[in-house]
């Protein structure tokens, strides 16, 4: 099938490690699973559907891919009621109207010499296509992505928020990399874009869509990866503090709360702690900055009693590793 002919327009990526390194070079800390999915998507030219909780870097992956491949990123944000007009193309009504008005005077000249209604109609018909040509076409994200001659990354964000009709409409785009504009015809992408769809699982996606995509599930990162991510985003954080704050956030995620803190919130928290010149976690500091991590009043109230044990455990983490490495403990 199409996978065998190598006209993807990209140079093929040879190894999974190359992807991990490449994404790393633009600041995205990848995992084996993520890199495998990107590798497959790139070389098989299939869309990737990424699912997982909010704030684990689903959207960021697409943006990083675009940065790394040096391809333009086209983003389509989905919402309830999104339709083809907003996703694919629209006729520039205003421009059409303006031109009609401008040409009104010309109309007399054009019609000159047409004696019957029939001939004038024929003359008019010959101009009709003018108004439905590409110069009056307003490309929306999907069409923009199809028309990129150098290839691009197309991010369809939060597809689960769109309606089922829109999902069905996407199928043509996803499997054939082409779109149909009735007045003009089918527009096919010369270089198929790399499509990334993200979903927060608000609604179960249709089987037809899932069938056409590779599937990647990204969960909250483990402590080691989260440390790497924070380190990449906040380079001036000290090792001790980094270890402690990540351990604290990881502990927090295991608790029974409404909204578990995402990676971006960990990063924000790290920045906050640095602003406050913290070198170590302590209870008072955690308590006063907790609203950076938890966004619900009820969550803050429910973890209140756990702050001290969690913070102690997090601090113990660094002491333990210091003992293990023979590093002298701070007096």
């Amino acid at each position, binding site marked *: *099938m199409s*996978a*065998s002919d190598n006209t993807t327009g990209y140079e093929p990526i040879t190894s*999974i490690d190359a992807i991990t390194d490449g994404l790393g070079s633009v600041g995205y800390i990848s995992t*084996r*699973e993520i890199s*495998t*999915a990107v590798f*497959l998507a790139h*070389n*098989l030219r*299939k869309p990737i*559907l990424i*699912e997982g909780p909010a704030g684990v870097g689903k959207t960021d992956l697409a943006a990083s891919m675009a940065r790394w491949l040096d391809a333009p990123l086209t983003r389509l944000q989905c919402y*309830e*009621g999104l339709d083809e007009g907003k996703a694919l193309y629209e006729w520039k*009504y*205003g421009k059409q*109207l303006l031109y009609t008005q401008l040409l009104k005077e010309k109309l007399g000249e054009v019609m000159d010499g047409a004696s019957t209604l029939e001939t004038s109609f024929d003359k008019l018909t010959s101009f009709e296509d003018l108004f439905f040509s590409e110069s009056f076409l307003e490309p929306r994200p999907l069409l923009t992505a199809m028309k990129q001659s150098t290839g691009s990354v197309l991010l369809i964000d939060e597809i689960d928020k769109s*309606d*089922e009709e829109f999902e069905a409409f996407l199928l043509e785009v996803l499997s054939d990399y082409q779109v149909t504009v009735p007045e003009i015809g089918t527009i096919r992408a010369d270089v198929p874009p790399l499509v990334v769809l993200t979903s927060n699982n608000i*609604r*179960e996606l249709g*089987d037809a869509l*899932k*069938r*056409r*995509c*590779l*599937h*990647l*599930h990204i969960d909250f990162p483990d402590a080691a990866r989260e440390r790497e991510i924070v380190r990449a985003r906040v380079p001036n954080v000290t090792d001790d503090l980094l270890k402690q704050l990540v351990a604290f956030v990881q502990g927090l995620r295991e608790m029974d709360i409404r909204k578990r803190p995402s990676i971006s919130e960990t990063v924000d928290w790290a920045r906050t702690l640095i602003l406050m010149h913290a070198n170590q976690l302590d209870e008072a500091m955690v308590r006063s900055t907790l609203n950076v991590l938890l966004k619900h009043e009820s969550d803050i109230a429910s973890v209140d009693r756990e702050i001290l044990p969690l913070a102690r455990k997090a601090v113990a983490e660094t002491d333990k590793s210091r003992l293990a490495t023979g590093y002298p403990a701070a007096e």
Partner: protein
Amino acid sequence: MAEQVLTDFIRALRSADVRVSTGEAIDAANAVKLMGYADRTRLSDTLRCVLAKSPAEKATHDRLFDLYFSRKAPETPSPEMEDSSEDSNEGGGDMLDLIESGDETQIAMALEQAGEEAGLADIRFSTQVPYFAQQMMKAMGVERLEGQMMEAFREKTAEGDDRAQDLIDGRAEMFQRARDHAQQAFETFGAGATEQFRDEFLSDKRITQLDRRDLDRMRGLVEKMAKRLAVKHSRRRRKKNRGQLDVRKTLRANAGYDGVPFDLAWKQKKRDRPKIIAICDVSGSVAQVVRFFLMLLYSLHDTVPDLKAFAFSGRLEEVGDILEAEDFTAAMDRIINQIGMRSTDYGQSLSDLKVDHWQAIDRRATVIILGDGRSNYGDPRVDLLSEMTARAKRTLWLSPEPESLWGSGDSELLRYQAYCDKMVHVMTIKDLERVVDEVLASYN
């Protein structure tokens, strides 16, 4: 050969309830061509990305991948190895040589091949394991071994006896290995099918005849059912009906174009959110049916946010809070023990409803009453039911008793029936699903 390995694995996935389409199978083949079989983790990563499309499916994939490829491991590390396995067919086919050589790789390959000859991929039930093991023994040439064994016996010498004993031991060990092999094949290919079969069986079984030990499994079933219903009915609330122009909206939207109607606005029909009021008789035999009915409704929480549940026998009480706050099974037990112990009085319960909760019943609400209508010869208060029907969108009555018993003895069902939009007999959880499906469909 490599193709076969993949096809068999996809078959195993399908039997474990992971839907894999032909297109996805082709994708998997392409992906594997790209990645190769050499690296096991990479192969697993690749297949779970292409074939498993939800966290649950990924978990199933991981389990099956380990089962399946641990078995296949000695055989398919690289294409060159495959060729050599073809060559060793003559040697590998004979059990006698295998036992004597004791070469683990040879034995594993012979088992694999015998499994294929015996059609092990078709195994569906655990009871088939000994049969398939037997078939595998035959495929490996157990007859020749038995022949030798008899010969050794016939020699009637000490050495002959020893040799026969060795052969018997070897045969027993071989059988054990064949059995293990078949067992693993069952877990790969058949376990999912058996589960499916049991699920089918339970969902068709009368609710009143279910054992307590089936409850957990039923719970899973009901949740699956609720998910199915939720997917089916969680469409969007607004529906465009193209064709009917909304003149006001159009004029307003096009004021900017000098009133020339470029953007047309169409009339929209708003769909009501489903609202369900469940009124359940929790006395005696009806209680069990109520348990599953409420379980189903509460699993539909996202689709039906407006849900009120009442339980009664003598008096009526709202039970929504208990059900939401506590673990479902415990809450249900408490409700049945606390409310279900009085003697049933439908008239009193209806009047309790009228006094305390009448405002909950409005034209958006579907009232579902679940009960046998046996009211101990008290006044059934048919007038209240009639009033309720007039207020509600629809009134349904579910009866655990078959139609032939309606109206017999103290059953008031025939009198109530006149005031219900529908009265149906529910026996299995499939019946319950059908009723809820219909109710949700009426909000489209």
